[in-house]
């Protein structure tokens, strides 16, 4: 089912399968929207206004549209990061912690070094990428060498990344003149240049996010190494017997994921802030899981998925400010949609009917010809 090239018959069934996938996604999203509506009607005093804000709020102002784009950038990075590990069926969820850690590394580099404009940001991003890659590789290495659960280790790593980052900022870079726990202000050379002066979206951030999708799409779907990763996700034994690099598929995929998540954190830090001011994990790593599932683990579709998610979030934020409905509800709805998307048996009967219909039509066509 992976390619449509295996003759007409497979091609037809393939079409049915992908058509079914689209139907399934639409139904899942509609169910999600319906549940949202029910909940909002239950808790909001102005349910219609709340719903309108949530689904159509972002088009109201240019600023909101830019907010969507700004939010898309970190979601794209973590979405791609998770897509890569999920392609290899490695459940490394360290993107959450590495994103945070990458932000810290970028902040520290932005404060401590004095470099010319442009180069400074590049050094920040590169360092975050390097350290992110090392952190991401750690669960991969332990999995490959000793078969330790990358899932549990990466989850623990998230907490360690968080604590270590806060330790570094609090004890070495904290601006004691500021009231809250924040770092010193970055050197002026470090932050990335804004795409449009008024908004926080940066040229560098946008370009890097697009590059991450394009490069990793080509890497995963057009190179031998990428094929090794995807085939390990399908069938590890096949990968091994085919002589493909299993070690790379396990460790490499997780390291690459760490690199992308690290870059994501650095870009976020240098785009949205002038000093380090995070005090809790950002949640973008978990969002990355949602983005990856929407995108079917394919970086090609990640911008679309990230856009959808960002739209809902900004809409929910507008809803919160105007009508006071808590935005956590959006994340609950997303989780429900996700479950419907990954549930193999959800709408399985419909799929069956579609395939049968297709096959019957084809058989009838063949009879007529005869």
């Amino acid at each position, binding site marked *: 089912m992976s390619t449509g090239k295996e003759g007409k018959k497979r091609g037809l069934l393939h079409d049915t399968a992908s058509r079914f996938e689209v139907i399934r996604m639409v139904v899942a999203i509609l169910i999600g929207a319906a549940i949202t509506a029910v909940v909002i009607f239950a*808790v909001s005093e102005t349910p219609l206004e709340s719903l309108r804000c949530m689904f159509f709020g972002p088009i109201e102002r240019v600023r909101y549209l830019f907010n969507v784009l700004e939010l898309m950038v970190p979601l794209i990075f973590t979405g791609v990061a998770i897509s890569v590990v999920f392609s290899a069926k490695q*459940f490394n*969820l360290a993107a959450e912690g590495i994103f945070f850690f990458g932000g810290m590394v970028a902040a520290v580099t932005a404060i401590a070094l004095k470099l010319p404009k442009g180069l400074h940001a590049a050094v920040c991003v590169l360092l975050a990428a390097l350290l992110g890659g090392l952190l991401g590789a750690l669960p991969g290495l*332990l999995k490959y*060498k*000793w*078969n*330790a*659960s990358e*899932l*549990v*280790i990466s*989850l*623990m*790593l998230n*907490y*360690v990344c968080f*604590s*270590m980052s*806060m*330790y570094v900022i*609090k*004890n070495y870079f904290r601006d004691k003149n500021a009231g809250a726990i924040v770092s010193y202000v970055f050197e002026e050379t470090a932050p990335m240049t804004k795409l449009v002066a008024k908004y926080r979206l940066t040229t560098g951030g946008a370009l890097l996010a697009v590059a991450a999708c394009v490069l990793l799409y080509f890497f995963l779907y057009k190179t031998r190494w990428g094929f090794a990763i995807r085939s390990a996700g399908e069938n590890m034994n096949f990968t091994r017997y085919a002589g493909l690099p299993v070690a790379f598929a396990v460790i490499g995929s997780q390291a690459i994921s760490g690199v992308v998540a690290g870059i994501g954190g650095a870009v976020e830090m240098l785009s949205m802030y002038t000093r380090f001011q995070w005090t809790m994990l950002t949640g973008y790593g*978990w969002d990355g*899981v*949602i983005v990856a*599932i929407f995108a079917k683990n394919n970086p090609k579709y990640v911008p679309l998925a990230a856009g959808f998610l960002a739209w809902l979030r900004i809409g929910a934020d507008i809803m919160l400010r105007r009508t006071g409905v*808590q935005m*956590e*509800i959006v*994340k*609950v709805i*997303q*989780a*429900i949609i*996700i*479950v419907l998307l*990954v*549930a*193999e*048996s*959800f709408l399985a009967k419909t799929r069956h009917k579609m395939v049968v219909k297709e096959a019957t039509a084809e058989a009838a066509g063949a009879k007529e010809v005869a």
Partner: protein
Amino acid sequence: MEELFSVIGNAAFAASILRVTTPILLAALGAAVASQAGCLNMGLEGIMLFSALTGVFVSSLTGSAVWGSWAGLAAGVLIGGALGALLGYLVLTLKTDATLAGVALNTIGSNGTVFLLYVWTGSSGISSSHKSFVLPDLEIPLLKDIPVLGTIFSGQNVVTYLAFALVLALIFFLYKTPLGLRIRAVGLNPDAADSVGINVVRMRYLAYILSGVLAGIGGAYMSMGYVSWFARDMTSGRGFIALAASAMGRSTPVGTTVASLLFGFTMALSNSMQTLSIPYELVEAVPYACTIVALSVYAYHQVRKSKKARK
């Protein structure tokens, strides 16, 4: 260093290990039961959060200091079991990937509880504005008068005793009852179990429900024993640590208990080290870092053992 040893050498510290281990142990037993049936319960964190919130909500609703907390515990257990069944439905009936279903349940738990908390109290952080009740501590007659042992083993929360009693109950259930045997058979070899007429899916549903119930008790303890309120994301990774404990304990009740005590020790250590002059963030990372190290060492050991067995 000397300071550190004076902390660890204290009987109160040993008592705090039991207190801190309780929620981890309960959730880890939940993970172990699921794993015995060949299932993965990744949703422990979300289940614990829901049970913690439900417990506080129900106990506050009753307004009774005598039985309110018990009603809360019962409600928490019920919700835990229901969520276990839901996870079972997702994984067994809808055939969702167990990891992703768990992640989804955790997301719903983490955000859903905040949403419900807000609807209930108007605060999205903590429930302390509404008075709720805690489960009682038990003074054990005679034992409480023995100097060191009394400090450690008497006066613990009733759930702590319940947790360790449940370890024994689970040993009995898994190894001495026909139902337990069936659950283990399904975990060892589902096809073989199926061929002798055991309903694999039904056994796995049962395991998920039991798993949810155990995690539910752990969650209710968090908000009605460990502390006396619900706070957002208050389980802070205990569900995941429980998974690690079950993996290290090879999903046997005894092994899981030992591993849970180990994690309880590091967590208690990190709690009491906060009074020393070590930066808070470093101390805070100790239990999680220890989990990584312990899990790696354990995995390394397993690989060595299986290599030796092959020779």
